[in-house]
């Protein structure tokens, strides 16, 4: 049995990579190592960027598992229940109608629609919550490095620590460290 705090922790949000430094990395393997290092260095605000999901990265970054499926479960079930109750109410009390000698509450006939509604609600809630947690929809957002969506990898460090400290931290893993413009400050 999982505690709600855990679930809450599993619903962490994306934070904008503004301010601080971005270190570009050569390969996925390096990125894993880099993430490890940054985590060990105890950096609070940091994030990794890659063109594709990398297995083990969340462990390396020390992120807790995503609890999106929990939302799916809740909405899915409620969708099914709402649908079934609605049909029951309509067919039995609001306007009872005789169909081919079937009882008014012909529950087996309600099952397909109940099922479909479960799926519908589940799926849309899942997508919705993902968009929300991933803060997707902010189309003005730019990638930290342009090549990220093609073949580049990068680590963003938001904490206020010096460039060379970062260089030390990621010794040999990065090829350059760029300062990211912070709209607030500039």
């Amino acid at each position: 049995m999982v505690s709600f705090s855990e679930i809450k922790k599993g619903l962490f949000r994306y934070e904008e990579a503004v301010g601080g430094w971005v270190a570009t990395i050569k390969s996925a393997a390096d990125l894993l190592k880099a993430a490890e290092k940054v985590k060990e260095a105890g950096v609070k605000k940091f994030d990794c960027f890659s063109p594709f999901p990398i297995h083990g990265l969340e462990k390396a970054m020390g992120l807790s598992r995503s609890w999106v499926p929990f939302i799916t479960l809740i909405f899915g079930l409620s969708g099914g229940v709402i649908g079934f109750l609605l049909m029951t109410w309509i067919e039995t009390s609001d306007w009872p109608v005789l169909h081919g000698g079937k009882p008014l509450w012909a529950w087996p006939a309600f099952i397909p629609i109940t099922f479909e509604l479960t799926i519908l609600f589940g799926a849309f809630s899942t997508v919705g919550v993902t968009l929300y947690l991933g803060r997707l929809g902010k189309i003005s957002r730019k990638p930290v490095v342009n090549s990220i969506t093609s073949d580049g990898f990068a680590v963003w460090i938001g904490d206020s620590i010096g460039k060379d400290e970062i260089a030390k931290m990621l010794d040999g893993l990065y090829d350059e460290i760029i300062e990211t413009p912070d709209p607030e400050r500039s």
Partner: protein
Amino acid sequence: MNANSEKGNMWRSVEAKERQKYEVEKASPNEFPAAVTELIEKGFNYSLDRKKFLTIMGASLSMAGINCAKQPAEKIVPYVFRPPEAQPGIPVHYATARVNHQGVLPILVKAREGKPIKIDGHDEHPVSKGAMTADGFAGIWELYDPDRLKTSAEKTSADFSDIDTATAIAKAVEIVKGASNVRVLSRASYSPSEKKAKSSFLRARGSRTQVVYDAGGNQAQLFAGEAKSYGSAIIPQYRFDKADLIVSIGADFLGTWITPEVYTKQHSSRRNPDKNMNRLVVAETMMSLTGANADTRFPISAGTHLVFALGLAKQLLSGSAYANNASVKKAVAPYTAEKTAAITGVDATQIKSIAKELKKKKGKSLVVAGGTNTLDGDLGSIQVVANLINSILGNDGKTIEHNVPLLEKGDFSSPAELAKLIDDMKNGNVDVLILDRANPVFDLPAESGIREAIKNVKNVIAIADHKDESASEANLVIAASHYLESWNDGYSSGVYSVAQPVIRPLFDTQSVGEIWLQLAGLDSNYYNFIKDDNAGSYLTGSLNIAFEKALSDGFFVARRGGSSSSRKFKAGALSSIKAPTEANSGLTLTLYESVQIGDGINGNNSYRHELPDPITKICWENFVAVSKADAQSNGWRLGDLLEVSREGRSIKAPIYIQPGLKDGSVALAIGYGHESIGSVGDGVGANAWTLAGFSKNGSTFDGLSVEIKKVESGYRTATTQRHHDMHGRGLVRHAPLSDYKENPKAGSIEHDLHLPGRGLYPVHDYSILAEGKGTYKWGMAIDLSKCTGCSACVISCYSENNIPVTGKDEVWRGREMSWMRIDRYFEGEIENPTAHFAPVMCQHCENAPCENVCPTNATQHSPEGLNDMAYNRCIGTRYCSDNCPFKVRRFNWFEQWEGKIADPAQYALNPDVTVRGRGVIEKCSFCVQRINEQRQMAKSEGRKIEEKDLKTACQQGCPADAIVFGDIGNKETMARAQWDLERGYRMLDEVNVHPRVKYLTRIINQG
């Protein structure tokens, strides 16, 4: 100008007995007094109203979803004086009669807002007892036929120009005055007044002026035969209800012969297996309705009806009063059982056995013969033989009542006179020829040469309702009214009927009576003429009161018939008879009358054409019926178009392979093939009179030897039923009487023994869920022993429920709209099969498959067990129709009404039934409009519906009383009684749909 108007106050309904005064003239300057109430403004001009109504209908149908969207502002035009019984929305019934060349048909006309919308049988009539045929019901559309003459016409130079009828008549009078040699060619008339009016015209011009002919020949043949054999030209009353054994030789008395509706009622009254059931034996060539209903049927070769009769007579002769009569002996001598068998193709032993049966039933049997299909060129010969047989059996006076005949004073002229007239016309000896509702060019055998002859007549005056083949040859066409528009009277089987107009003439027409009065130079008030000069000789008591009564009742019984002494048979009549002495070789044709078209005088009625032929289920066509063997030997297949030719004349018609037709025999229906009768009838089928023979002894319709060749294949014949085999599914169940006597459930088949039990759901109990107290449980029982398949119910349903006609192509596609159809199946070997009929309409299944699958709730079940159909909720998925095991649901593939019906056809629509638009499903509703009307009345009077008040259209239409509808939840009702009979079964009960229609197994009396 028109008698009806002043005499409007005479109109009566059987319901409203007390007398009220119409102020028709005051009501409005318009033609339709009652029509104006509560009708949209456009209605004021009759040429628009209902059509506009339909436009709005169409609109609102398509706007049903957004229910009351803005509708065009409608106007309400009330009466100036409202006659108390004319309450808007409440129908008025008028008792009247259809008097025409076929005889007198007592009818009850239902009128709404002054417009007749339905014709029904007159239940109170002593003879007809409310019996009707499809032919009778179809009359309503003839009244509203858009192609009817709207006014008279005169031929100036080449083509016609319209003139109003009054002038036309005046002109006619002028023409006749001047002319020396005036002749009248007309169809029979059974209206005393009409005859009298006419005779006062003829008197001045000698007896031979008028020639009356019979296109179909049924009646002329009977009159002639009776005259020869008993001396008086009458048509006796055949009492099929009194006979235990009926032998019919070619006479289709259940379908087309003389008065089929009456005969059907009488016959069916004896088809109850629980009470001394009668037995019907039929010998005929083409399978007729009667033959299809026979307990035993003998297919005989074309042209041998007379031989069969003689053969039968010979068998019966020994030991009878006529045994030693020389001329009788001489006549029947050649026709030994073997000889007869050789010629007719019937088994000799069968002839003997029938004779034996007849001998057992002396005085309790009835032998009828005749009909178009037996006319062999010697008018009445077969009747003479039939009469001989009846006299031998002593049926005359018992099962044949002659003291009060069905029709008397048959005014038919002899074939010789007709031939003479045609000669005179050819030689130009006729100055003026008046055609009284006669269409000789169409319905006289082409051999008579009438087509050429009529061209040599200087002046042809046609009294007609259509510009038909003959009328278009005329110089002057006088437009005659429909029988629902005109006063008339009729006399048949001792009953005097007064026919009252139910609506003023839609067009500038006059009733035939008026026209003749004027031609005779008398006062044109036909109403007075009927009342003062004629009624008196039939009515008893004070004329005024008696006439009033006759008017409100629709009839007055002048003389009562009954059994009487038998007449003396004149054996001399037999001397002239010549019958074939050996079997005919090659293909031999017999022409017959079809149930739906008859002699074709109403050939412009689309509903008649849409009604499938009861036997072959083919519509919009007549066809060449051939036997399977002939088809195979000649390499003909279904879908071929054949050319039938005789003596240089030929017609083309599609093939139909008719089971139960003797090899070498070919059959073809008359009445089709109009060239100019109207937009509907023109070019439908082929005119079979082209092939008929004509001589001064009478026309030949039977035993014509013909050549047939195939001219085209892949011809599309419209039919409503393509399969004739029941595949042993026990749909129409039947059992011999003997079996039934032992086991009342005889005929039921094994699979009802293991009916499925409950399915996923518990069985629904309607008696419990029925809302409220004043509830009913509607159900129907159909007795297949009584049902003859005559299709009267189908037409009645068409008329009641605004069912559209779709036309040949759509029927061919399988898109006919009929809410109820008559399934016809053949069983047994193809040479002589048994035919079975079953009327199938929506079965209102308690577990209706259609309801479960409709996504929009357009069809659902009423607590009373009706399968409701809400057209305006239907979106047309057609899933219900797919899932209907009976396939009784019809889909509107195209718009059937809006812009499709020509004025004034829209008046025939029943305002109580929604006119369906395009794209919705429709089906039988058990006439829910009638149920609701009764329910509303009952409710407002705080009582329950009484069974006598409520009849479905089909029940009302059934002359055989085979259909019973009612509250099967109530132990007292007739419906319940029938429903509970052990004979009953539900069609496709194994599908577990629990229909609310029960069929009673057909019991066949195999003697």
